């Protein structure tokens, strides 16, 4: 092996019961290199990450850090200079942000809250000026929205300088500017000689920073090459095999067909305001139309969405569903009006991870099919869901814990797809799902819309926004700064609106409000 190579992975095998999560995976990471680890959902990326982090043991194979074989175990890995961001974040909900970031002290008897706060503050300052987290060092992580949690996890990994940094989908819930921050920061680290392994499904991000691709397929290495060497198609083929090639090809455009036959107003919101989160929002969702709501992290999209289904309540403003004035008491009453919300934080509020995949699939919709309170069991439905959405699991009876992150997300969508609602609000529906699955999901969303449903999709990924939307809404600092048809928009306008709360055309007039107050 070349002496300069920082990390050597030799013939790693890992089995979970019957499924082989990793088959004879070998790779290497040079100092100062950013390696993009890619692959379809369930390809084995997270498993590899966990093994490198020492929190899971491989069945066979060895890991060599700077010439020394790495013994199993988290502390050992830490000692060897490996820092990790897990896909499920693995934070401590009931501890404060500061404690989460600072982690354990060096000495056995030297812990102090002040010190940990200082460390946390310093770290955050180092990563980005005026990180919003600085204002909530004393808040418990459980109180933060997903995007903030993700930032905490990132900060935790960067708190102590490490030689190898491994990030498992760090940008899944992040939006434009946060992703920018992260990527530039990673570049800086790399220049400083740190080796980075970067797991992501967002090709745009990957293309921007990675020096080399490592693609896993069904747990085996399918490709290892520099961006120069491979075309998009080759990449897709590597990830999904021949089958996937066109699936992951250029995604189909949003079709205006449904909009021709005059769309009805399904849901209208007037001057909705919620102190500290969003103000004076007026929106209309039309049946047969996909409205995409985008914005920066913390622009209050999730809050708005949750208010729509009554998980929170407007301080003022009114909401009508197909003309009827309503105030909803929660998701239940929302559903009774055919309005469904698919949350972004799937582990906390989406899935029943200790139950079987089948139950999670048919679960949330049982009451739609029950007769006089008695269940109608339809296991074939579950099986159907599994195959439709290409969910990889050890059969419908495997507990959801054992599914890969992306597959869990698919389960969540498949469930609500079965629910067949008239109005859907989906918060980051494609976070963490692979490209082919994403195009698949987009296709279904369009079918949904075509079938007359009104969709509100919250997304932070510009490509997705442009590709999926019939109508685009942009939040900035809690106010609606743009509401336009896709056809009358271009990328630049969108960017401008997201970042500055204004379109190049008319100069900033949107009431931008200081976020710090919240």
């Amino acid at each position, binding site marked *: 092996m070349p002496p300069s190579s920082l990390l050597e992975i030799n013939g790693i095998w890992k089995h979970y019961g019957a499924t082989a999560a990793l088959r004879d995976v070998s790779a290497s990471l040079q100092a100062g290199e950013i390696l993009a680890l890619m692959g379809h959902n369930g390809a084995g990326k997270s498993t590899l990450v966990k093994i490198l*982090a*020492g*929190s899971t043991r491989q069945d066979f194979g060895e890991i060599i850090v700077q010439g020394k074989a790495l013994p199993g*175990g*988290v*502390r050992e890995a*830490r000692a060897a200079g490996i820092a*990790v961001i*897990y896909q*499920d974040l*693995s*934070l*401590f*909900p*009931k*501890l404060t942000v500061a*404690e989460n970031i600072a*982690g*354990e*002290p060096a*000495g*056995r*008897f*030297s*812990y*102090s*809250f002040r010190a940990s*706060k200082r460390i946390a*503050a310093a770290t*955050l300052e180092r990563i980005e000026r*005026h990180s919003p987290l*600085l*204002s*909530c*060092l*004393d*808040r418990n992580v*459980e*109180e933060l929205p997903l995007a903030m949690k993700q930032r905490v996890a990132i900060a935790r990994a960067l708190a102590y300088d490490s030689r190898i940094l491994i990030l498992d989908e760090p940008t899944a819930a992040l939006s434009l500017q946060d992703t920018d921050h992260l990527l530039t920061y990673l570049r800086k680290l790399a220049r400083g000689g740190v080796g980075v392994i970067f797991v992501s499904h967002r090709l745009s991000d990957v293309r921007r920073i990675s020096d080399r691709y490592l693609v896993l397929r069904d747990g085996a290495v399918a490709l290892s090459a520099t961006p120069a060497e491979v075309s998009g198609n080759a990449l897709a083929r590597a990830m999904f095999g021949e089958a996937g090639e066109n699936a992951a090809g250029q995604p189909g455009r949003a079709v205006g067909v449904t909009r021709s036959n005059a769309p009805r107003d399904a849901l209208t919101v007037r001057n909705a305001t919620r102190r500290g989160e969003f103000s004076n929002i007026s929106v209309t969702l039309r049946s047969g139309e996909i409205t995409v709501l985008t914005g920066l992290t913390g622009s209050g999209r999730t809050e708005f969405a949750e208010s729509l289904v009554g*998980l*929170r309540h407007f301080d003022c403003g009114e909401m009508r569903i197909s003309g009827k004035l309503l105030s909803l008491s929660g998701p239940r009453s929302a559903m009774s009006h055919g309005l469904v919300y698919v949350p972004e*934080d799937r*582990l*906390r*509020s989406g899935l029943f*991870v*200790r139950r079987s995949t089948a139950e999670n699939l048919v679960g949330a919709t049982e009451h739609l099919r029950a007769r006089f309170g008695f269940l109608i069991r339809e296991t074939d439905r579950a099986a159907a869901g599994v195959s439709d959405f290409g969910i990889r699991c050890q059969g419908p009876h495997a507990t959801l*814990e054992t599914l890969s992150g992306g597959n869990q997300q698919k389960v969540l969508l498949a469930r609500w797809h079965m629910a067949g609602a008239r109005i859907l609000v989906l918060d980051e529906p494609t976070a963490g799902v692979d490209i082919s699955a994403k195009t698949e999901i987009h296709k279904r969303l369009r079918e949904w819309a075509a079938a007359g449903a009104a969709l509100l999709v919250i997304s932070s990924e510009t490509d997705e926004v442009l590709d999926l939307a019939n109508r685009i809404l942009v939040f900035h600092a809690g106010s609606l700064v743009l509401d336009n048809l896709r056809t009358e928009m271009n990328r630049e306008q969108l960017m401008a609106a997201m970042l500055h709360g204004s379109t190049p055309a008319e100069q900033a007039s949107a009431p931008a409000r200081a976020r*710090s107050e919240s």
Partner: protein
Amino acid sequence: MTPLRSSASERLRLSIHRHETKLASLLLVLGIALAITAPRFFSSVNLALLARSMGVLLIISVGMLNVILAGGIDVSAGATLAVVSVVLVRLGNRGLPASVVLPIGLLTGATLGAVNAALIAELRIPPIVATLGTAGLFRGLLLEWTQGEWESSIPPWLNAIGSPRWGGLDASVLAAALTVLAATWILHRTQIGRALFRFGDSPIAAARIGISPRQPIYFAYISLGILTAIGAVFYAAQLGAVQGNAANGYELTVIAAVVLGGADILGGRGSLLGTFLGVLLLCSLQQALVLLHVATFWQNIATGLIVLLGVILSSAPRLHRKLLLQQSPSA
């Protein structure tokens, strides 16, 4: 710089919603009510009595707090208390010196704690089940050993420990104070202390920063065992006698005190101050009801209502917090 300033106001906001604050105000209200209806409650003698009656409970509650922080629970504390106090008194009455008996007592406590820990950490039996089992086991074996003979007198040195000095206070009060101080240091300043919180909060996340389940579990249960043993010394010393079926159901009082003190039964959250307030509430209630000449039949009712009131008060923030967040993702 910015974070510290803004977070100071943040802390204020939080401290108002702190469980301890609410509990304290509840106590204050009770105190005022008592000051009016039964001023004698605040007589030095009575306060001294209160302190003494709190000593043992507080010591053991601190141990229970450790266990609950680590996401566990121990319903065998009462049995452990009985075992240790019987061991102490029996050996003492056989004429062994304190210098021998006390270490043996502590060792017994630690051992019983270790048994619980082993069942939980090695055999992965859920804490409530494990301790439910050991409770029966310890108690049964103890009674089989004593054959129900009561130790009706205690050795003089033990008696000395229990007898009131310093204006009605006794050693148990001092010991309790020391325990709390030590615990404060351990929980807030040491790695193992923080590990308790982390493990209790999310075992998987803890494992992923290299905290093995063993460390916190053994620490929590052994410390509870030892503290229970210390409690047992004063328990026996105050009573001047012990019976094999002593402290039956005592564990429920202990748990009540700790959870009243705001400890999250799911682990990862709780405070010594809260625990202290919880103990204070229970003990002063007990005494106040008698002082107020409340008819016996109504004492339980009153106690129950106050406890429930405490529970409702303490979780008031959660009631109007935006969502219910009690449950952390178990992925």
